[in-house]
Protein backbone atom coordinates (compact mmCIF):
# COMPACT_ATOMS: atom_id res chain seq x y z
CA UNK A 1 0.00 0.00 0.00
CA UNK A 2 1.27 3.41 -0.95
CA UNK A 3 1.97 5.79 1.87
CA UNK A 4 -0.99 8.07 2.32
CA UNK A 5 0.64 10.44 4.69
CA UNK A 6 1.89 13.64 3.16
CA UNK A 7 4.21 14.33 6.07
CA UNK A 8 6.16 11.20 5.39
CA UNK A 9 6.30 12.00 1.70
CA UNK A 10 7.63 15.44 2.49
CA UNK A 11 10.01 14.89 5.38
CA UNK A 12 10.63 11.19 5.50
CA UNK A 13 10.10 9.03 8.53
CA UNK A 14 11.96 10.43 11.49
CA UNK A 15 11.18 11.19 15.10
CA UNK A 16 9.95 14.69 14.36
CA UNK A 17 7.50 13.73 11.69
CA UNK A 18 6.19 10.91 13.83
CA UNK A 19 5.65 13.40 16.61
CA UNK A 20 3.96 15.73 14.16
CA UNK A 21 1.74 12.93 12.95
CA UNK A 22 0.80 12.10 16.52
CA UNK A 23 0.13 15.66 17.52
CA UNK A 24 -1.94 16.64 14.52
CA UNK A 25 -4.95 14.52 15.58
CA UNK A 26 -4.47 15.60 19.18
CA UNK A 27 -4.59 19.20 18.15
CA UNK A 28 -7.60 18.43 16.06
CA UNK A 29 -9.36 16.65 18.93
CA UNK A 30 -8.82 19.56 21.28
CA UNK A 31 -9.99 22.21 18.84
CA UNK A 32 -12.86 20.09 17.68
CA UNK A 33 -14.00 19.31 21.23
CA UNK A 34 -14.11 23.00 22.08
CA UNK A 35 -16.18 23.69 18.99
CA UNK A 36 -18.46 20.73 19.66
CA UNK A 37 -19.08 21.81 23.24
CA UNK A 38 -19.97 25.27 22.04
CA UNK A 39 -22.17 23.79 19.33
CA UNK A 40 -23.97 21.68 21.86
CA UNK A 41 -24.60 24.66 24.12
CA UNK A 42 -25.71 26.88 21.29
CA UNK A 43 -27.83 24.42 19.37
CA UNK A 44 -29.64 23.27 22.48
CA UNK A 45 -30.33 26.91 23.25
CA UNK A 46 -31.63 27.69 19.79
CA UNK A 47 -33.89 24.65 19.79
CA UNK A 48 -35.33 25.90 23.05
CA UNK A 49 -35.70 29.48 21.81
CA UNK A 50 -32.93 30.65 24.09
CA UNK A 51 -29.59 32.20 23.31
CA UNK A 52 -27.09 30.07 25.17
CA UNK A 53 -23.81 31.49 26.45
CA UNK A 54 -23.68 35.15 25.51
CA UNK A 55 -21.40 36.88 27.92
CA UNK A 56 -18.06 35.16 27.29
CA UNK A 57 -16.60 36.85 24.27
CA UNK A 58 -18.81 37.90 21.36
CA UNK A 59 -21.85 35.62 21.33
CA UNK A 60 -20.20 33.48 23.94
CA UNK A 61 -17.76 31.83 21.58
CA UNK A 62 -15.05 31.73 24.21
CA UNK A 63 -17.22 29.71 26.57
CA UNK A 64 -15.39 26.38 26.13
CA UNK A 65 -12.07 28.14 26.64
CA UNK A 66 -13.29 29.57 29.90
CA UNK A 67 -14.48 26.16 30.93
CA UNK A 68 -11.11 24.60 30.30
CA UNK A 69 -9.35 27.35 32.23
CA UNK A 70 -11.71 26.81 35.10
CA UNK A 71 -11.45 23.03 35.11
CA UNK A 72 -7.66 23.32 35.21
CA UNK A 73 -7.96 25.30 38.40
CA UNK A 74 -10.37 23.01 40.17
CA UNK A 75 -9.27 20.94 43.08
CA UNK A 76 -8.62 17.34 42.15
CA UNK A 77 -10.46 15.17 44.61
CA UNK A 78 -9.78 11.50 45.08
CA UNK A 79 -12.47 10.01 47.28
CA UNK A 80 -11.21 8.56 50.49
CA UNK A 81 -12.54 5.06 50.10
CA UNK A 82 -11.81 4.72 46.43
CA UNK A 83 -9.33 2.45 44.76
CA UNK A 84 -6.74 5.11 44.10
CA UNK A 85 -4.80 3.66 41.20
CA UNK A 86 -7.79 2.61 39.13
CA UNK A 87 -9.61 5.80 39.97
CA UNK A 88 -6.80 7.93 38.69
CA UNK A 89 -6.11 5.74 35.69
CA UNK A 90 -9.65 5.53 34.36
CA UNK A 91 -9.95 8.95 32.71
CA UNK A 92 -6.64 8.51 30.94
CA UNK A 93 -7.67 5.13 29.61
CA UNK A 94 -10.94 6.46 28.33
CA UNK A 95 -9.28 9.39 26.66
CA UNK A 96 -6.61 7.14 25.19
CA UNK A 97 -9.28 4.90 23.74
CA UNK A 98 -10.96 7.84 22.05
CA UNK A 99 -7.74 9.40 20.87
CA UNK A 100 -6.10 6.21 19.61
CA UNK A 101 -8.99 5.65 17.26
CA UNK A 102 -7.91 8.73 15.34
CA UNK A 103 -4.83 6.85 14.18
CA UNK A 104 -6.60 5.16 11.32
CA UNK A 105 -9.12 7.80 10.37
CA UNK A 106 -8.44 9.07 6.83
CA UNK A 107 -8.79 12.82 6.99
CA UNK A 108 -7.81 13.25 3.40
CA UNK A 109 -6.49 11.30 0.48
CA UNK A 110 -3.08 12.51 1.55
CA UNK A 111 -3.32 12.19 5.28
CA UNK A 112 -4.11 9.28 7.50
CA UNK A 113 -1.95 9.07 10.63
CA UNK A 114 -1.39 5.33 10.35
CA UNK A 115 -2.64 3.66 7.20
CA UNK A 116 -2.84 0.13 8.53
CA UNK A 117 -4.66 -2.51 6.56
CA UNK A 118 -6.97 -3.62 9.35
CA UNK A 119 -8.14 -0.12 10.16
CA UNK A 120 -11.77 -0.99 10.79
CA UNK A 121 -10.80 -3.88 12.99
CA UNK A 122 -8.42 -1.65 14.90
CA UNK A 123 -11.07 0.99 15.50
CA UNK A 124 -13.35 -1.59 16.97
CA UNK A 125 -10.71 -3.10 19.15
CA UNK A 126 -9.51 0.22 20.47
CA UNK A 127 -13.09 1.36 21.07
CA UNK A 128 -13.49 -1.36 23.66
CA UNK A 129 -10.71 0.12 25.74
CA UNK A 130 -12.94 2.99 26.72
CA UNK A 131 -15.43 0.44 28.01
CA UNK A 132 -12.73 -0.81 30.31
CA UNK A 133 -12.06 2.72 31.49
CA UNK A 134 -15.72 3.22 32.28
CA UNK A 135 -15.86 0.12 34.41
CA UNK A 136 -12.67 1.07 36.18
CA UNK A 137 -13.92 4.56 36.88
CA UNK A 138 -17.31 3.38 38.04
CA UNK A 139 -16.01 0.65 40.24
CA UNK A 140 -13.10 2.54 41.74
CA UNK A 141 -15.22 5.53 42.74
CA UNK A 142 -16.89 3.52 45.46
CA UNK A 143 -20.21 5.12 44.79
CA UNK A 144 -23.43 3.27 44.07
CA UNK A 145 -24.49 5.64 41.36
CA UNK A 146 -21.11 5.34 39.65
CA UNK A 147 -21.21 1.59 39.84
CA UNK A 148 -24.71 1.34 38.44
CA UNK A 149 -23.84 3.81 35.72
CA UNK A 150 -20.77 1.83 34.76
CA UNK A 151 -22.64 -1.47 34.67
CA UNK A 152 -25.33 0.00 32.50
CA UNK A 153 -22.76 1.57 30.29
CA UNK A 154 -20.88 -1.63 29.75
CA UNK A 155 -23.93 -3.71 28.95
CA UNK A 156 -24.97 -1.03 26.52
CA UNK A 157 -21.60 -0.86 24.80
CA UNK A 158 -21.41 -4.60 24.35
CA UNK A 159 -24.93 -4.93 23.03
CA UNK A 160 -24.60 -2.20 20.48
CA UNK A 161 -21.18 -3.21 19.32
CA UNK A 162 -22.75 -6.11 17.42
CA UNK A 163 -25.20 -4.22 15.18
CA UNK A 164 -22.47 -1.69 14.53
CA UNK A 165 -20.06 -4.46 13.65
CA UNK A 166 -22.60 -6.01 11.29
CA UNK A 167 -22.99 -2.70 9.51
CA UNK A 168 -19.26 -2.37 9.11
CA UNK A 169 -18.91 -6.00 8.09
CA UNK A 170 -21.30 -5.57 5.21
CA UNK A 171 -19.17 -2.76 3.89
CA UNK A 172 -16.16 -5.01 4.24
CA UNK A 173 -18.03 -7.63 2.23
CA UNK A 174 -18.69 -5.10 -0.50
CA UNK A 175 -15.15 -3.76 -0.62
CA UNK A 176 -13.18 -6.81 0.51
CA UNK A 177 -10.91 -4.45 2.40
CA UNK A 178 -10.57 -3.23 5.97
CA UNK A 179 -8.31 -0.37 5.15
CA UNK A 180 -10.26 2.78 5.70
CA UNK A 181 -8.27 4.74 3.18
CA UNK A 182 -9.05 2.18 0.52
CA UNK A 183 -12.71 2.18 1.38
CA UNK A 184 -12.73 5.93 1.04
CA UNK A 185 -11.03 5.98 -2.30
CA UNK A 186 -13.41 3.35 -3.64
CA UNK A 187 -16.31 5.73 -3.20
CA UNK A 188 -14.98 8.54 -5.36
CA UNK A 189 -16.99 9.85 -8.24
CA UNK A 190 -19.99 11.56 -6.76
CA UNK A 191 -22.42 10.76 -4.03
CA UNK A 192 -24.04 8.04 -6.09
CA UNK A 193 -20.99 5.89 -5.48
CA UNK A 194 -21.16 6.15 -1.71
CA UNK A 195 -21.94 3.00 0.15
CA UNK A 196 -25.09 4.49 1.56
CA UNK A 197 -26.32 4.11 -2.03
CA UNK A 198 -24.80 0.69 -2.53
CA UNK A 199 -21.34 1.77 -3.57
CA UNK A 200 -19.94 2.01 -7.06
CA UNK A 201 -21.80 -0.11 -9.57
CA UNK A 202 -24.30 -0.06 -12.36
CA UNK A 203 -28.10 -0.09 -12.26
CA UNK A 204 -28.06 -3.59 -10.84
CA UNK A 205 -27.32 -2.17 -7.42
CA UNK A 206 -30.72 -0.50 -7.20
CA UNK A 207 -32.35 -3.27 -5.20
CA UNK A 208 -29.67 -3.21 -2.58
CA UNK A 209 -29.99 0.50 -1.84
CA UNK A 210 -32.76 0.14 0.81
CA UNK A 211 -30.54 -2.26 2.69
CA UNK A 212 -27.51 -0.02 2.63
CA UNK A 213 -29.56 2.94 3.75
CA UNK A 214 -31.00 0.77 6.49
CA UNK A 215 -27.53 -0.23 7.57
CA UNK A 216 -26.46 3.38 7.70
CA UNK A 217 -29.33 4.16 10.01
CA UNK A 218 -28.61 1.09 12.11
CA UNK A 219 -24.99 2.09 12.44
CA UNK A 220 -25.99 5.62 13.35
CA UNK A 221 -28.36 4.43 16.08
CA UNK A 222 -25.77 2.01 17.41
CA UNK A 223 -23.19 4.76 17.42
CA UNK A 224 -25.52 6.93 19.49
CA UNK A 225 -25.65 4.13 22.00
CA UNK A 226 -21.92 3.63 21.97
CA UNK A 227 -21.28 7.26 22.76
CA UNK A 228 -23.96 7.30 25.45
CA UNK A 229 -26.02 9.96 23.79
CA UNK A 230 -29.76 10.51 24.15
CA UNK A 231 -31.90 8.45 23.75
CA UNK A 232 -29.32 6.02 25.05
CA UNK A 233 -27.74 8.15 27.76
CA UNK A 234 -28.84 5.81 30.49
CA UNK A 235 -25.40 5.57 32.12
CA UNK A 236 -25.53 9.25 32.90
CA UNK A 237 -29.29 9.57 33.11
CA UNK A 238 -29.57 12.65 35.26
CA UNK A 239 -32.99 11.79 36.52
CA UNK A 240 -31.93 8.47 37.97
CA UNK A 241 -28.21 8.22 38.42
CA UNK A 242 -26.84 11.55 39.45
CA UNK A 243 -24.12 11.72 36.82
CA UNK A 244 -23.38 8.12 36.02
CA UNK A 245 -19.91 6.69 36.21
CA UNK A 246 -18.19 10.06 36.52
CA UNK A 247 -20.21 11.20 39.51
CA UNK A 248 -17.14 11.35 41.73
CA UNK A 249 -14.73 12.94 39.30
CA UNK A 250 -13.84 16.58 39.45
CA UNK A 251 -11.54 19.04 37.79
CA UNK A 252 -9.33 17.96 34.95
CA UNK A 253 -10.15 14.27 35.27
CA UNK A 254 -13.73 15.09 34.67
CA UNK A 255 -12.67 17.25 31.77
CA UNK A 256 -10.99 14.21 30.24
CA UNK A 257 -14.26 12.31 30.39
CA UNK A 258 -15.89 15.29 28.84
CA UNK A 259 -13.34 15.49 26.05
CA UNK A 260 -13.41 11.76 25.50
CA UNK A 261 -17.16 11.85 25.09
CA UNK A 262 -16.94 14.46 22.38
CA UNK A 263 -13.95 12.79 20.78
CA UNK A 264 -15.88 9.54 20.69
CA UNK A 265 -18.76 11.30 19.03
CA UNK A 266 -16.38 12.40 16.33
CA UNK A 267 -14.83 8.96 15.95
CA UNK A 268 -18.14 7.24 15.33
CA UNK A 269 -19.18 10.03 12.99
CA UNK A 270 -15.90 9.72 11.13
CA UNK A 271 -16.35 5.98 10.72
CA UNK A 272 -19.86 6.52 9.48
CA UNK A 273 -18.59 9.14 7.07
CA UNK A 274 -15.78 6.93 5.85
CA UNK A 275 -17.69 3.76 5.26
CA UNK A 276 -21.06 5.07 4.15
CA UNK A 277 -20.79 8.70 3.19
CA UNK A 278 -17.78 8.62 0.93
CA UNK A 279 -15.14 9.77 3.38
CA UNK A 280 -13.15 12.68 2.00
CA UNK A 281 -14.79 12.48 -1.42
CA UNK A 282 -16.65 15.39 -2.83
CA UNK A 283 -20.30 14.60 -3.45
CA UNK A 284 -20.03 16.11 -6.95
CA UNK A 285 -17.54 13.86 -8.69
CA UNK A 286 -14.37 15.69 -9.56
CA UNK A 287 -15.75 19.06 -8.54
CA UNK A 288 -13.82 20.40 -5.52
CA UNK A 289 -11.94 17.14 -5.26
CA UNK A 290 -8.39 16.99 -3.94
CA UNK A 291 -6.32 16.44 -0.82
CA UNK A 292 -7.16 19.80 0.74
CA UNK A 293 -10.76 19.77 -0.27
CA UNK A 294 -10.83 16.23 1.09
CA UNK A 295 -10.14 17.52 4.58
CA UNK A 296 -12.92 20.01 4.14
CA UNK A 297 -15.46 17.46 2.97
CA UNK A 298 -14.49 14.92 5.57
CA UNK A 299 -14.80 17.31 8.47
CA UNK A 300 -17.96 18.80 7.06
CA UNK A 301 -19.66 15.42 6.78
CA UNK A 302 -18.47 14.22 10.17
CA UNK A 303 -19.50 17.41 11.84
CA UNK A 304 -22.89 17.16 10.23
CA UNK A 305 -23.33 13.76 11.89
CA UNK A 306 -22.20 15.23 15.19
CA UNK A 307 -24.76 17.99 14.83
CA UNK A 308 -27.37 15.37 14.08
CA UNK A 309 -26.47 13.65 17.33
CA UNK A 310 -26.81 16.90 19.21
CA UNK A 311 -30.11 17.62 17.54
CA UNK A 312 -31.47 14.22 18.53
CA UNK A 313 -30.27 14.67 22.06
CA UNK A 314 -32.43 17.71 22.55
CA UNK A 315 -35.47 16.13 21.00
CA UNK A 316 -35.99 12.67 22.36
CA UNK A 317 -36.63 11.24 25.80
CA UNK A 318 -34.43 8.42 26.97
CA UNK A 319 -34.95 4.68 27.00
CA UNK A 320 -35.11 2.46 30.01
CA UNK A 321 -32.43 -0.15 30.53
CA UNK A 322 -34.46 -3.15 29.44
CA UNK A 323 -35.92 -1.26 26.51
CA UNK A 324 -32.44 -0.38 25.45
CA UNK A 325 -31.53 -4.03 25.43
CA UNK A 326 -34.72 -4.78 23.58
CA UNK A 327 -33.88 -2.27 20.89
CA UNK A 328 -30.34 -3.56 20.65
CA UNK A 329 -30.92 -7.28 20.58
CA UNK A 330 -34.39 -7.67 19.19
CA UNK A 331 -34.61 -4.84 16.70
CA UNK A 332 -31.24 -3.65 15.51
CA UNK A 333 -29.50 -7.00 15.53
CA UNK A 334 -32.05 -8.96 13.43
CA UNK A 335 -32.45 -6.06 11.04
CA UNK A 336 -28.72 -5.72 10.61
CA UNK A 337 -28.49 -9.45 9.91
CA UNK A 338 -31.15 -9.16 7.23
CA UNK A 339 -29.31 -6.28 5.62
CA UNK A 340 -26.05 -8.12 5.89
CA UNK A 341 -27.42 -11.20 4.15
CA UNK A 342 -28.92 -9.09 1.40
CA UNK A 343 -25.66 -7.26 0.82
CA UNK A 344 -23.68 -10.47 0.85
CA UNK A 345 -26.03 -11.83 -1.82
CA UNK A 346 -25.47 -8.72 -3.85
CA UNK A 347 -21.72 -9.05 -3.45
CA UNK A 348 -21.84 -12.69 -4.57
CA UNK A 349 -23.98 -11.91 -7.61
CA UNK A 350 -21.59 -9.23 -8.77
Amino acid at each position, binding site marked *: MESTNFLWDLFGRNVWTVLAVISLPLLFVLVYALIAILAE*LKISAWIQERLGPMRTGPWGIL*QPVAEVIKL*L*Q*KEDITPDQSSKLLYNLAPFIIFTGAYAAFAVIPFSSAFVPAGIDVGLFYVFAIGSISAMGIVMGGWASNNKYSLMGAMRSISQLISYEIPAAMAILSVVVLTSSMNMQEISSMQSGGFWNWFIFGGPGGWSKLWVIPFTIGLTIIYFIASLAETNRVPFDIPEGESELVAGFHTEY*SGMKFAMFFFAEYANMFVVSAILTTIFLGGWNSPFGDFLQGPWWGVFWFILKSFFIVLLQIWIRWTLPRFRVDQLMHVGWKVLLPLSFVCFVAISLFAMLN
Partner: protein
Amino acid sequence: MGLLNRLDDPYEGGGIVLGKVEELLNWGRSKSDWYLHFGLACCAIEFMAMNASHFDFMRFGTIPRTSPRQADFIMVTGTVTFKMAERIKILYEQMAEPKYVISVGSCSNSGGPYWEHGYHVLKGVDRIIPVDVYIPGCPPRPEAFEEGMMQLQKKINQQAIFNKRKRIELEDSTKDESNKES
Protein backbone atom coordinates in the same frame (compact mmCIF):
# COMPACT_ATOMS: atom_id res chain seq x y z
CA MET B 1 -15.44 42.65 32.83
CA GLY B 2 -13.15 42.10 29.93
CA LEU B 3 -9.73 40.61 29.88
CA LEU B 4 -7.54 43.58 29.28
CA ASN B 5 -9.52 46.57 30.28
CA ARG B 6 -8.01 46.95 33.71
CA LEU B 7 -4.70 48.61 33.17
CA ASP B 8 -3.78 49.64 36.66
CA ASP B 9 -1.57 47.14 38.36
CA PRO B 10 -2.60 46.14 41.83
CA TYR B 11 0.07 43.47 42.12
CA GLU B 12 3.05 44.98 43.76
CA GLY B 13 5.33 41.96 43.89
CA GLY B 14 4.25 39.93 40.91
CA GLY B 15 4.23 42.55 38.25
CA ILE B 16 2.04 42.92 35.27
CA VAL B 17 2.52 39.42 33.82
CA LEU B 18 1.35 37.73 36.96
CA GLY B 19 -1.48 40.17 37.16
CA LYS B 20 -2.60 39.34 33.66
CA VAL B 21 -2.35 35.60 34.30
CA GLU B 22 -4.38 36.04 37.42
CA GLU B 23 -6.96 37.98 35.49
CA LEU B 24 -7.13 35.25 32.91
CA LEU B 25 -7.59 32.60 35.56
CA ASN B 26 -10.23 34.63 37.31
CA TRP B 27 -11.92 35.29 34.03
CA GLY B 28 -12.12 31.59 33.34
CA ARG B 29 -13.55 30.87 36.74
CA SER B 30 -16.05 33.64 36.70
CA LYS B 31 -17.33 32.99 33.22
CA SER B 32 -17.81 29.29 33.52
CA ASP B 33 -19.50 28.57 36.79
CA TRP B 34 -21.17 25.23 37.00
CA TYR B 35 -23.69 25.06 39.73
CA LEU B 36 -25.17 22.48 41.97
CA HIS B 37 -28.76 23.42 42.22
CA PHE B 38 -30.06 23.01 45.70
CA GLY B 39 -33.74 23.44 44.99
CA LEU B 40 -35.52 23.26 48.28
CA ALA B 41 -38.71 25.22 48.10
CA CYS B 42 -40.55 28.05 46.39
CA CYS B 43 -37.42 29.75 45.12
CA ALA B 44 -36.58 26.62 43.17
CA ILE B 45 -39.58 27.24 40.96
CA GLU B 46 -38.38 30.73 40.19
CA PHE B 47 -35.00 29.20 39.62
CA MET B 48 -36.49 26.88 37.04
CA ALA B 49 -38.18 29.87 35.45
CA MET B 50 -34.82 31.61 35.32
CA ASN B 51 -33.29 28.63 33.58
CA ALA B 52 -36.09 28.68 31.05
CA SER B 53 -36.05 30.53 27.78
CA HIS B 54 -37.18 33.92 28.99
CA PHE B 55 -34.28 34.56 31.30
CA ASP B 56 -31.82 31.89 30.21
CA PHE B 57 -29.34 31.56 33.00
CA MET B 58 -26.95 29.77 30.67
CA ARG B 59 -26.05 33.11 29.10
CA PHE B 60 -23.72 33.56 32.07
CA GLY B 61 -21.90 30.37 31.21
CA THR B 62 -23.53 28.39 33.96
CA ILE B 63 -24.26 24.74 33.41
CA PRO B 64 -26.23 22.66 35.88
CA ARG B 65 -24.33 19.74 37.34
CA THR B 66 -25.98 17.08 39.39
CA SER B 67 -22.80 15.91 41.06
CA PRO B 68 -21.27 18.17 43.72
CA ARG B 69 -17.78 17.18 42.63
CA GLN B 70 -18.14 19.00 39.35
CA ALA B 71 -19.90 22.07 40.64
CA ASP B 72 -18.36 25.45 41.33
CA PHE B 73 -21.08 26.96 43.40
CA ILE B 74 -24.21 25.95 45.22
CA MET B 75 -27.38 27.89 44.89
CA VAL B 76 -29.35 27.28 48.03
CA THR B 77 -32.86 28.16 46.99
CA GLY B 78 -35.35 27.62 49.70
CA THR B 79 -35.99 26.85 53.31
CA VAL B 80 -33.27 24.88 55.04
CA THR B 81 -34.65 22.64 57.74
CA PHE B 82 -32.66 20.89 60.40
CA LYS B 83 -33.25 17.59 58.71
CA MET B 84 -31.77 19.03 55.54
CA ALA B 85 -28.96 21.03 57.09
CA GLU B 86 -26.64 18.10 57.59
CA ARG B 87 -27.04 17.11 53.96
CA ILE B 88 -26.17 20.57 52.76
CA LYS B 89 -23.05 20.49 54.84
CA ILE B 90 -22.03 17.13 53.40
CA LEU B 91 -22.66 18.25 49.85
CA TYR B 92 -20.75 21.45 50.42
CA GLU B 93 -17.82 19.49 51.75
CA GLN B 94 -17.92 17.20 48.73
CA MET B 95 -17.42 20.09 46.35
CA ALA B 96 -14.01 20.76 44.93
CA GLU B 97 -12.25 24.03 45.67
CA PRO B 98 -12.72 26.81 44.70
CA LYS B 99 -16.33 26.79 45.73
CA TYR B 100 -18.92 29.42 46.38
CA VAL B 101 -22.37 29.62 47.86
CA ILE B 102 -25.25 31.82 46.82
CA SER B 103 -28.06 32.01 49.28
CA VAL B 104 -31.32 32.81 47.56
CA GLY B 105 -34.43 34.12 49.17
CA SER B 106 -35.45 35.10 52.64
CA CYS B 107 -35.63 31.53 53.89
CA SER B 108 -32.04 30.63 53.28
CA ASN B 109 -30.84 34.10 54.19
CA SER B 110 -32.24 34.06 57.66
CA GLY B 111 -35.12 31.67 58.00
CA GLY B 112 -37.40 34.13 56.27
CA PRO B 113 -41.05 34.00 57.23
CA TYR B 114 -40.26 31.09 59.49
CA TRP B 115 -37.63 32.78 61.60
CA GLU B 116 -39.88 33.38 64.55
CA HIS B 117 -41.98 30.29 65.15
CA GLY B 118 -40.33 27.79 62.85
CA TYR B 119 -39.15 25.16 65.26
CA HIS B 120 -37.76 23.05 62.47
CA VAL B 121 -36.23 25.73 60.26
CA LEU B 122 -32.56 26.61 60.25
CA LYS B 123 -32.38 30.37 60.62
CA GLY B 124 -30.09 31.09 57.75
CA VAL B 125 -27.90 28.75 55.76
CA ASP B 126 -24.86 30.80 56.75
CA ARG B 127 -24.99 29.07 60.10
CA ILE B 128 -23.61 25.93 58.52
CA ILE B 129 -21.78 26.95 55.36
CA PRO B 130 -20.10 30.22 54.39
CA VAL B 131 -22.25 32.27 52.04
CA ASP B 132 -20.78 34.56 49.41
CA VAL B 133 -23.82 36.32 48.03
CA TYR B 134 -27.21 36.90 49.58
CA ILE B 135 -30.10 37.48 47.21
CA PRO B 136 -33.14 38.91 48.97
CA GLY B 137 -36.67 38.22 47.88
CA CYS B 138 -39.38 35.76 48.64
CA PRO B 139 -38.94 34.47 46.05
CA PRO B 140 -36.63 36.84 44.16
CA ARG B 141 -37.43 37.65 40.58
CA PRO B 142 -35.41 35.68 38.02
CA GLU B 143 -33.53 38.85 37.20
CA ALA B 144 -32.56 39.16 40.82
CA PHE B 145 -31.01 35.71 40.62
CA GLU B 146 -28.99 36.87 37.66
CA GLU B 147 -27.96 40.01 39.43
CA GLY B 148 -26.73 37.88 42.31
CA MET B 149 -24.81 35.76 39.84
CA MET B 150 -23.15 38.87 38.48
CA GLN B 151 -22.23 39.89 41.99
CA LEU B 152 -20.57 36.53 42.45
CA GLN B 153 -18.68 36.93 39.18
CA LYS B 154 -17.51 40.29 40.36
CA LYS B 155 -16.33 38.77 43.57
CA ILE B 156 -14.44 36.02 41.76
CA ASN B 157 -12.85 38.52 39.43
CA GLN B 158 -11.42 40.45 42.32
CA GLN B 159 -9.89 37.47 44.04
CA ALA B 160 -6.16 37.33 44.46
CA ILE B 161 -4.61 34.01 43.60
CA PHE B 162 -0.85 34.44 43.64
CA ASN B 163 0.05 36.63 46.55
CA LYS B 164 -2.25 34.71 48.84
CA ARG B 165 -3.87 37.75 50.23
CA LYS B 166 -7.09 37.36 52.03
CA ARG B 167 -10.20 37.85 50.02
CA ILE B 168 -10.52 41.49 49.24
CA GLU B 169 -13.38 43.11 50.99
CA LEU B 170 -15.51 44.24 48.18
CA GLU B 171 -16.74 47.72 47.81
CA ASP B 172 -20.06 47.70 46.19
CA SER B 173 -19.99 50.73 43.98
CA THR B 174 -22.96 49.92 41.82
CA LYS B 175 -25.52 50.17 44.54
CA ASP B 176 -27.01 53.43 45.60
CA GLU B 177 -26.32 53.84 49.23
CA SER B 178 -29.07 56.34 49.77
CA ASN B 179 -31.24 53.96 51.71
CA LYS B 180 -28.51 52.59 53.85
CA GLU B 181 -27.43 53.62 57.24
CA SER B 182 -26.41 57.22 57.19
